[in-house]
């Protein structure tokens, strides 16, 4: 049965079961729900819970492109998605995948955005207008003439979104669209989607791991668990459900309230601040964020404590005996095209101590990856000095690039290989095929490959650098990574981790270096840097706006320590 597109729900799934070819377990189990036109729905869940499969089924890639067996019924704007293919659904649904590099099929941005319209047979004038309008809506008209292989990850993600939106589809499906974006671009993208949702009436189904980034924008949350719908309701009820069902899905602000015993759980910063400053709470003796203070004392005491930490960090990292790497006046120039060259790093001074855990943050294109590549010798500096006390092991953004053989033991033969496997906790997987390992295990194996032979016995190299290691990771896997980083630092390696994930940085880093346009714009203890701003601050930091308070635990202590904080 085909319903009229104007009346039909944007997406309707009824009793959908699906298994990939050769998969032992089904990826979707009895999934049923309906999305009305104009809804903004957040799809939550751990890694491998079925989120991406659900999105692929909604745009026709499952089963038409991926194969496998499917049961049940999927309708997109009244069109039977199982009977029709992705091509037929292209007019009513737009899809943005997790990795923007795999969703670019043209060489220039304008050609990429124009392609769906051309395939549909729109006349040239109409195509030109649609490209112009969507480019303006997404603030990318300046990119239209650029070649796609010169774009940053964030720019590429916007181009992919533009190509998905240019046909004005009724339903937009997004699979972790902010995973490669810096906090500023990530926030901008979510609110841009919200604006398009409100102004164009587009139904949005957004899968994300960083729920704190988009929960406040959502009308509804669907949480997947082992291929089934575990929860379907409004964001506030979702937080209550997550508190009991899966704490890995709790947002930091909800965890803060939960630890401090405050209700209702907040769906975002605004709601949290409103609750904290409400008359009801003030009446019970609670403090407004601006009047709360840290460590149970005066705010100035907290600031003094941070100032001491700053001094500690600078003293510790500067001591010659403990230095893992010292960079002085580093300049790096890269070319964007044959003609255009620009300074990506401009006079960087940086010292990382042994055993120190440093987060390297900044906007897309700020120079984080270039700095790591230059330290590892992949990119040449045009000026400056790098003093490495011993070797550096660098893990780039795609761990699969390190894996070229069919057996873990073949990648890491001999005593040096075994020692590296022990360090990352994979000594049991010697005979496994790297492709059979989980995403987290593959990352550990790649790190072991980078470490092998650079260790003196069991002692690690001076510096271990990781470039965006949390792409596509759920919170449970991030917690594992935090544990590994702590372990490596405990063994004496300096850890320099480039990341966009503020909450992850707060969890592992003792110091944060913030890059902006190739220069260091902030360098200090994580508690200081991640609590003093808006974009490069944790959700707890933004809720409480207290110096040094960046994690839910610290926030709950601050709330409890405040006079009358007896919730």
């Amino acid at each position, binding site marked *: 049965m085909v319903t009229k597109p104007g009346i039909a729900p944007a997406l309707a799934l009824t009793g959908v079961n699906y298994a990939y070819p050769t998969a032992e377990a089904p990826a979707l189990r009895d999934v049923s729900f309906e999305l009305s036109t104009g809804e903004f729905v957040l799809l939550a869940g751990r890694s491998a819970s079925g989120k991406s499969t659900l999105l692929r089924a909604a745009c*026709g*890639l499952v089963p038409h492109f991926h194969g496998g067996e499917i049961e049940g019924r999927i309708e997109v704007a009244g069109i039977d998605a199982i009977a029709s*293919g*992705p*091509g037929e659904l*292209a*007019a009513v649904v737009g899809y943005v*995948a997790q*990795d923007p590099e*795999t*969703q*670019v*099929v*043209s*060489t*220039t941005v304008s*050609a990429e955005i124009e*392609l*769906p319209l*051309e*395939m*549909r*047979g*729109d*006349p*040239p*004038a109409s*195509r*030109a207008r649609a490209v112009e309008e969507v480019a303006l809506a997404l603030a990318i008209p300046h990119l239209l*003439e650029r*070649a796609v*292989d*010169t774009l940053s990850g964030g720019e590429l993600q916007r181009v992919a979104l533009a190509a998905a939106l240019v046909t004005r589809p009724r339903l937009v499906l997004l699979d972790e669209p902010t995973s490669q974006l810096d906090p500023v671009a990530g926030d901008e993208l979510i609110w841009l989607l919200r604006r398009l949702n409100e102004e164009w009436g587009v139904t949005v189904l957004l899968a994300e791991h960083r729920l704190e980034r988009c929960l406040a924008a959502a009308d509804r949350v669907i949480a997947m668990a082992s291929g089934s719908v575990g929860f379907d309701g409004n964001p506030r009820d979702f937080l209550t459900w997550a508190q009991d069902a899966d704490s890995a899905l709790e947002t930091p602000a909800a965890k803060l309230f939960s630890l401090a015993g405050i209700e209702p759980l907040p769906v975002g910063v605004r709601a949290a601040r409103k609750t904290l400053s409400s008359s009801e709470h003030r009446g019970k003796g609670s403090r407004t964020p601006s009047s709360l203070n840290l460590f149970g004392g005066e705010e100035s005491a907290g600031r003094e404590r941070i100032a001491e930490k700053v001094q500690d960090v600078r003293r510790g990292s500067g001591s010659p005996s403990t230095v893992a790497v010292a960079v002085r006046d580093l300049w790096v120039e890269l*070319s964007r*095209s*044959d003609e255009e060259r620009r300074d990506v790093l401009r006079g960087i001074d940086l010292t990382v101590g042994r055993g120190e855990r440093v987060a390297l943050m900044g906007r897309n294109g700020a120079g984080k990856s270039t700095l790591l590549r230059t330290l*590892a010798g*992949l990119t040449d500096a045009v000026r400056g000095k790098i003093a490495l006390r011993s070797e550096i*092991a*660098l*893990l*780039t953004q*795609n761990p699969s*690039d*390190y*894996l*070229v*053989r069919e057996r873990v033991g073949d*990648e*890491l033969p*001999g005593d*040096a*290989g075994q020692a*590296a496997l022990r360090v990352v906790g994979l000594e049991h997987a010697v005979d496994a095929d790297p492709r059979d390992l989980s995403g987290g295990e593959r990352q550990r194996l790649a790190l072991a*490959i*980078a*470490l*092998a*032979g*650079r260790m003196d016995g069991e002692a690690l190299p001076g510096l271990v650098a990781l470039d965006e290691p949390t792409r596509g990771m759920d919170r449970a896997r991030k917690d594992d990574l935090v544990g590994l980083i702590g372990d490596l630092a405990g063994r004496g390696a300096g850890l320099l981790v480039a990341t966009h994930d503020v909450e992850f940085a707060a969890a592992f880093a003792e110091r944060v270096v913030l890059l902006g346009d190739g220069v260091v714009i902030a360098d200090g203890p994580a508690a200081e840097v991640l609590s003093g701003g808006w974009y490069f601050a944790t959700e707890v930091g933004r809720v409480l706006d207290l110096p040094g308070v960046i994690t839910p635990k610290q926030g709950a202590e601050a709330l409890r320590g405040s006079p009358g904080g007896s919730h």
Partner: protein
Amino acid sequence: MRSPFAYIPRPRPLQLASPSAAVAYLGSLVVVAFLYSNPFVLLAVGLSFVIAGRLAGAAAAVRAALWMGFTLALLIVVVNALVVSRGETVLARLGEWPLFGQVDVTLEAILAGLVLGLRAAVVMVAFAVYSACVDPDRVLRALRPIAGRSALTATLVSRLVPVAAADAARLRDAARLRGPGAAPVGRAPLARRLLAGSLDRAVDVAATLELRGYSLQSRDPNAGATFSLPQRGERRFTGGGQGRRSRYDRRFYAVGALVLSVAVIGKALGADAFSEYPATEIGVATITLAVAAVVALSGLAPLRRMPVGSHREPRWVRNAHATELGQGSPGA
């Protein structure tokens, strides 16, 4: 950093030509490379691609392909010399080798290997010029009528080289970052990994193409025309569809037809005189040299004629003017 094989839009004849015209021109030369074994003709084909690539602004791609091609040619010469023992002029008797048996290195086997290697190098340069000069976007659109139901086929034809080039750069970096205790990355595992990875990524790109409606029947058969708005005029040579033609198309079709005709006629008249064994004989008849000359000159097809009124004087003339005006010296 961009791959030297990546397509860069330039307002030059080969890039401006429609994909079918460019493929007809480059393809005719590749056909000659497979049709002929005479080294003079093969060298002429190679020279033609080098000239064409340079005129089209793809000198970096030609250099990279020559380097790779000569490496491959050297490998072929060595393997052929060890595997083939035919030929009258024995240069060295290397005795019994496991798997190979009696190994006699002959001059004829080396020369035969050189011809095979030369052909492989010429084909690599041809693909380098194709990859760097023919717009994959337009190839994708041009393929739609014949491969509309198979986005994967279209992706493999138009995007595999750029995707593989990008992956190769990343894999090379990862290989350099391996610790000294990890197994070294041999060429074979790397090539396997590169091929598998590129195919996987090509499948992902094909999925995106499906989502963009590639397999749909277009409502308007002329929809491939490019932007008509004046402010998008500069995009005319970067985007556009399968229906757009270029004023250079006829030139490339004509040169391609001429090269093929001359090659076929020459072959019939004995221009491909070459035999490897038992003694190497290379024909240098007039007809062979004539075919080689036509093929080599066809490399000038992408030559751009300067627009009327934009004629620039040679540098020495400009310098002479400047000297007269007291602005510099001839040697400046």
